[in-house]
């Protein structure tokens, strides 16, 4: 909504308006910064968000209701306050949004915009994540800055995922349509869209009327270049063509930390890798918990992290540090090949056994192929002899996916991954790979486990919305899962190293949205 007051009125208002008590007059955003990403977001429209990498672009221009801050603490963002209550036995989330938040085109943010966003996000013909909104049966607009989400049943993930609604401008979107919006997106975020060349770059400009006065970019122009090739990205940084890069190749991290005038930061990016075993196929050796425990004792995950990914990984045991339900007292099964062999003997495999092992060869995470090879080699040292088969991404997805019915195709060991996101919540991944496969219900779409107790706990977790209850439940599931090596053996969470010129750039990484690539707080020195 833009109102054009008469000039006279404006002058009067300026004379009479009380001085707003904010921080002392700050310099306008100035200067230009060029950065390089190793991967490109495919969309600039949050409704069209397809995969994590899309946050790289969307996260600069669009915002949600709740947001984790740099210390991974959830803070209210576009939501001023919100709470969960119950009405008629069904949960209701009541949200009050901040007043005075403007879109890039000057429109003010209202509850109507969120209602519009909700309608679009739950439409499977438009959004690929419609199932995330499935539990909300009604969106009620209370007034311009307040709305309620009425759930048909408990949905813990809704809360865990920062209330999942993007602020998009209803009037503008309806005016320009989907295609028009993709060509000229408008959000509430700190950066305004200037131009985009697919596969080359995204040009942004700081939004002067951005609502958050405390955390905002002090750089005027931002150019994000896309350089997927590791070597060329590194060379671009070294030659000064860009002053900030993400994804420093793991093998070069050490070199970068030693570089003069360069600051590096290694952060966990929210993906969780693990090794899954086929436990629900008839006659599979992995159905025996002793064999699974043997496999867990056979792999020296720390050595792999150190040597194969050059330390660019953080070991996690079921739930990562900083995530909901993280338990520092939960210890992994120790690297102990002798114990592994003993367990195998106990289970009836004194000479080990042969098994197919499926490895992802497409580098969706750095060196994932080598990690898989190393894991399988470790298994081999205790007698679990792997017949390794490399699969590129498309084939790998098909291999892991549970079919309509019948036994899984994956008949051995597979290197897998499922992001628990940032700051991290395992509910959705566990629903997908810990819970057993149930045709037609959406449970266990990539699961090779069938444990009734785990199933019951995961189902309860889905319904639980209250944060402290969730934490307790997650810890209980984690302990059970760890003991019995169910739903796979967790290995590590990959880290990404960011590097920038220390004497030129000041950068404070915000985890989400954008997986630390959000330039919420960035400034040029001198």
């Amino acid at each position, binding site marked *: 909504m833009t109102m054009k007051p008469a000039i006279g009125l404006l002058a009067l208002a300026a004379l009479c308006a009380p001085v707003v008590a904010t921080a002392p007059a700050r310099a306008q955003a100035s200067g230009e910064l060029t950065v390089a990403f190793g991967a490109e977001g495919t969309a600039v429209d949050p409704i069209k968000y397809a995969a994590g990498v899309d946050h790289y672009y969307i996260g600069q221009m669009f915002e949600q209701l709740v947001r984790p801050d740099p210390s991974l603490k959830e803070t209210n963002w576009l939501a001023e306050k919100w709470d969960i209550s119950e009405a008629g036995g069904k949960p209701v989330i009541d949200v009050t949004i901040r007043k005075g938040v403007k879109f890039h085109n000057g429109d003010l943010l209202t509850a109507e915009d969120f209602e519009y966003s909700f309608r679009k996000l739950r439409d499977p013909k438009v959004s690929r994540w419609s199932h995330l909104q499935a539990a909300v049966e009604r969106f009620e607009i209370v007034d311009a800055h307040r709305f309620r989400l009425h759930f048909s049943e408990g949905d813990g993930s809704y809360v865990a995922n920062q209330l999942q609604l993007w602020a998009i401008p209803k009037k503008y979107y309806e005016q320009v349509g989907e295609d028009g919006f993709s060509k000229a997106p408008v959000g509430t975020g700190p950066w305004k869209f200037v131009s985009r060349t697919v596969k080359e770059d995204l040009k942004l400009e700081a939004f002067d009327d951005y609502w958050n006065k405390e955390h905002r970019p002090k750089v005027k122009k931002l150019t994000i270049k896309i350089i997927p090739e590791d*070597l060329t990205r*590194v060379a671009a940084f070294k030659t000064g063509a860009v002053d900030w890069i993400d994804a420093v190749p793991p093998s070069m991290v050490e070199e970068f930390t030693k570089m003069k005038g360069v600051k590096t930061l290694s952060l966990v990016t929210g993906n969780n890798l693990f090794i899954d075993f086929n436990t629900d196929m008839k006659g599979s050796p992995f159905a025996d918990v002793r064999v699974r425990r043997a496999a867990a004792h056979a792999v020296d995950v720390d050595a792999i992290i150190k*040597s*194969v990914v050059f330390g660019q990984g953080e070991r996690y045991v079921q739930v990562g540090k900083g995530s909901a339900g993280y338990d520092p007292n939960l210890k992994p099964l120790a690297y102990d090949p002798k114990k592994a062999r003993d367990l195998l003997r106990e289970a009836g495999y004194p000479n080990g056994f042969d098994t197919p092992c499926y490895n992802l*060869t497409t580098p969706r995470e*750095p060196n994932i*192929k*080598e990690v898989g090879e190393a894991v399988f080699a470790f298994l081999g040292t205790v007698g679990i002899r792997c017949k390794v088969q490399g699969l590129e991404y498309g084939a790998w997805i098909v291999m892991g996916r549970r079919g309509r019915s019948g036994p899984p195709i994956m008949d051995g060991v597979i290197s897998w991954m499922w992001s628990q996101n940032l700051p991290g919540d395992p509910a959705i991944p566990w629903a997908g790979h810990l819970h057993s496969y149930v045709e037609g219900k959406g449970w266990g779409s990539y699961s090779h486990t069938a444990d009734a107790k785990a199933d019951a706990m995961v189902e309860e977790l889905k319904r639980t919305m209250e944060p402290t209850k969730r934490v307790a439940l997650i810890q209980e599931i984690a302990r059970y899962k760890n003991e019995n090596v169910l739903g796979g053996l967790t290995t590590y969470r990959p880290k990404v190293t960011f590097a920038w010129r220390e004497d030129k750039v000041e950068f404070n990484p915000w985890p989400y949205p954008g997986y630390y690539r959000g330039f919420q707080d960035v400034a040029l020195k001198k």
Partner: protein
Amino acid sequence: MAEASPRLPRGFLAGLRGRVGATGLPWVSGTMLLLVVVAALFGEAIAPHDPNGFNLAAAFKPPAWQEGGSLAYLLGTDNLGRDVLSRIIAGARVSLIVAAYAIVFSGVIGALIGMISGYFGGRVDAVIMRLVDIQMSIPSLALALMIAAVLSPSLSTVVIVIAITYWTWYARIVRGEILSLKERDYVALAKVAGCGTATIFHRHLLPNVMNTLLVLATLQVGQVIIFEASLSFLGLGIQSPEVSWGLMLADARNYITKAWWTITLPGVAIMLTCLSSNLVGDWLRDTFDPKRRQL
């Protein structure tokens, strides 16, 4: 170029013997090629280490002649501590197996189709040539990538993909030869004498195109090896645990500044193999028909 009397086919070796004296053997390239073949055949016995034996503690050892290298790993190790020399030897086997099978398949299929097309002419020829055109209008790497995505990458897939990509060359060239050969007197005579088509193919046409085929095949070895390396490099070719030089280059890409030997030495292996097979192929071609330079 028509000849008065038919050049009756003699044995290949006889022809070889007769001409060696004239041009001399390609010693250097021949020995190089022989080395590669020996590596391919006896790889397991010669290789100092298990090509897939990984040893994280021994990762990134430079070649023996550099500081930090050791004689145990003559050409250094890669990021997982695997011996580069052993992997190069193992890769030789894969490269030659792929090349051999792929060339034989594409050569046989291509030659057969080429002969049929050239000999029968008319509609058959037109249809076949259209099919060849259609396939050749798709860039070979694009076609190979798509097929590999369908069949799921593996050694056999690579062989199939390369065979599918290269048969058209043989078909076209053989067809060209047949077109000129079929007008010869002795072919007409054979027809009059009542020889069946298969006999004509086998006795009269095939031996005459054999020289061309062999020269083409040898010249193709280099191309096929590079093609396979490109496929493996992109990730749709040979998959580990099998070893291919192209795959070694792909793996080494991330460590180019850290371990120059992992990215240079497999490439050198490719280069030397292709160079020597090209030279041998050139020599064969010059020996058998110096006039035919556009091959």
